[in-house]
């Protein structure tokens, strides 16, 4: 398949290795992956912050950039959710490509039927299911199926896993104290597992979790799932 890779503004800017890993996982499976230079941001921040009109040109731009691909893969469930759910609902976008945008793990498991990528990652890892992957994009257990097939990876269950990390986009700044209080509990849960790595599908949540773990001097690091799946 000729796949478009939507790197997302957050991952492109701060988690480039997650984007590169996404490309290499897909290429190893024999797909042609293109990261269009024209891409920028899906408009999620504007949509979620009450600036719908400012999101419109960004959404139109996304559609124009990616409409020619068979499918678009993205290392972020919340961006996928924005495109799949909010574009038609809030921006009146009626383009078939919005239904062909997938988060990496759901694309691998549900669209390609692949669960074992031959990856190896000899670490103790806990998985944080991000809110939008659970409740908007609804990736189900796809990420866990993939992680269970990684050689050497010891997967440990995260207590209160489905609790939010407290990021919430502009919420993390506007309501910084509440955001941090929620994060503190998440970091505590992660530490209680003794994991070296906390992984998730979303760069934005990993920005929050990683920032909390690092500030607290905690042992665990935040790593995007694509990087684990691309490890050999």
């Amino acid at each position, binding site marked *: 398949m000729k796949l478009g890779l939507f*790197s997302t*503004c957050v*991952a*492109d*800017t*701060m988690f*480039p290795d997650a984007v590169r890993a996404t*490309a290499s996982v897909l290429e190893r499976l024999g797909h042609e992956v*293109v*990261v*269009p*230079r*024209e*891409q*920028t*941001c899906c408009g999620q921040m*504007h*949509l*979620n*912050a*009450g*600036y*719908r009109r*400012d*999101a419109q*040109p*960004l959404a139109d*731009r996304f559609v124009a950039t990616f409409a020619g691909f068979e499918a678009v893969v993205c290392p972020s469930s919340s961006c996928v959710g924005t495109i799949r759910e*909010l574009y038609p609902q809030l921006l009146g976008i009626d383009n078939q490509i919005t239904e062909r945008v997938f988060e990496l793990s759901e694309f691998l498991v549900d669209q390609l039927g692949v669960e074992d990528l031959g990856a190896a990652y000899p670490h103790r890892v806990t998985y944080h299911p991000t*809110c*939008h992957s659970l*409740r*908007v994009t609804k990736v189900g257990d796809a990420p866990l199926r993939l992680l269970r097939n990684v050689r050497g990876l010891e997967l440990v269950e995260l207590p209160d896993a*489905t*609790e*939010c990390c*407290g*990021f*919430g*986009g*502009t*919420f*993390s*700044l*506007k*309501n*910084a*104290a*509440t*955001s*941090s*209080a*929620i*994060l503190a509990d998440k970091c505590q849960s992660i530490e209680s597992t003794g994991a070296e790595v906390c992984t998730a599908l979303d760069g934005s949540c990993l*920005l*929050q979790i990683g*920032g*909390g773990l*690092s*500030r607290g001097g905690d042992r665990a690091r935040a790593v995007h799932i694509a990087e684990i799946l691309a490890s050999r």
Partner: protein
Amino acid sequence: MKGPTESFPVAANRELGNAQLRSNLGNATSTIRAKRARVVEELPDWEALRDAGSAIKADVLANLDTYLLQFEQALTAAGATVHWARDGAEACAVVAEVARAHGADEVVKVKSLTTDEIELNATLAAQGIHALETDFAELILQLDGDWSSHILVPAIHRNRTEIRDLFQRTIAPDITSDEPGVLAEAARVYLRERFLNAKVGVSGANFGVAETGTLCVVESEGNGRMCTTLPPVLVSIIGIEKLVPSFADLEVFLQLLPRSSTGERMNPYTSLWTGVTEGDGPQELHVVLLDNGRTRVLEDEVGRQALHCIRCSACLNVCPVYSRTGGHAYGSVYPGPIGAILTPQLIGIENAPSLPFASSLCGACYEVCPVKIDIPRVLLHLREKSVDAVGGRTERAAMSGVGWVFGRAWRLRLAQRIGRVLQRPFVRDGVIRRLPPPLSAWTDSRDLRPIAPAHPSDENSGNDDE
């Protein structure tokens, strides 16, 4: 209805500083949340029930004019007097008039959010009429001049030692133990005499059946039933959105509500009454149909689903924000996710502009809502209204600036490059620990990952688009 007197972030900051509150809330919400999950899981048709609940409410709202007149007719035929109240003041005036007509200087009250919404107690007090709260938790708050922080468990922020001390100061000077049984007995002794002597009872209603004129109150303690059966006169105030078309529809809601609310299969007391029955219960029944902003909410096609709410409080218990800040931070009788969408709509977005932003948009509220209110969707809708109504110029400019940057790929690349230069003095050991305002809001409690040295969208061959 009173709105918040300060913005949510300011109020939340204060509440977050209360360690006792945080731990009480954490324990209480996680306990109820687990109970709810257990009893919901055992129903194979839970999703169908939610669909039914949502459909019935949507039908009621779409045909409210018809159902309200039917309800009025049925009530009148059953011997009740129906009053229409445009706002809280009109509703309170009905209660005051009834109390005065019967020479009552005290009325006994069933726990009711609607009466809190219209500030009934304060309005009656100003006219020399004491409204006695008879719900155990509401009584605690009333004795201490405090106010509710949770729809279902109003005193969730108080623990039993605090309650024992309060009772010592007020209704039971001799009490020494803080055992729940002892505390409950003290309240029971205090309340029983008041029930028997009360001339007027006041209630809200969970449901009103349009077809029959029946009112329904669900509760756990039985004190509500004391109020609706012992006094010779009863005034029930019901929001106009609380109707259900037929008696059979109660079947759906009496399953949805207790399981979502207390995590019980069935609540201990379900009281149903239809008008006046000679020789049994109150011989005079007044029913006040309250608008108080509801018809305005109804006008909004996206926002109106907030009127589906059956006040179960499941959304509060699963909310990461509510379970940290508690209810007082919301500055309204309707706290938590439902409050964040209901309060601004009832009192006008300009009077509560920060509430729709009091959410991380995690969606847990929508997942548990028994009548499927898409709270995140309404939050986005109200955020847009809030920005349009009272949005700050600085934020507007920042958002436009970011939008401009994202408008062309070369601008994003340029911004990434400039950011890399600007961040240099702040990066230590691969992280940013301190930034100047407004970004210090992030770095005060979290490290920030720096902008990377290179970007995948820039690694492809080809020319820039513009």
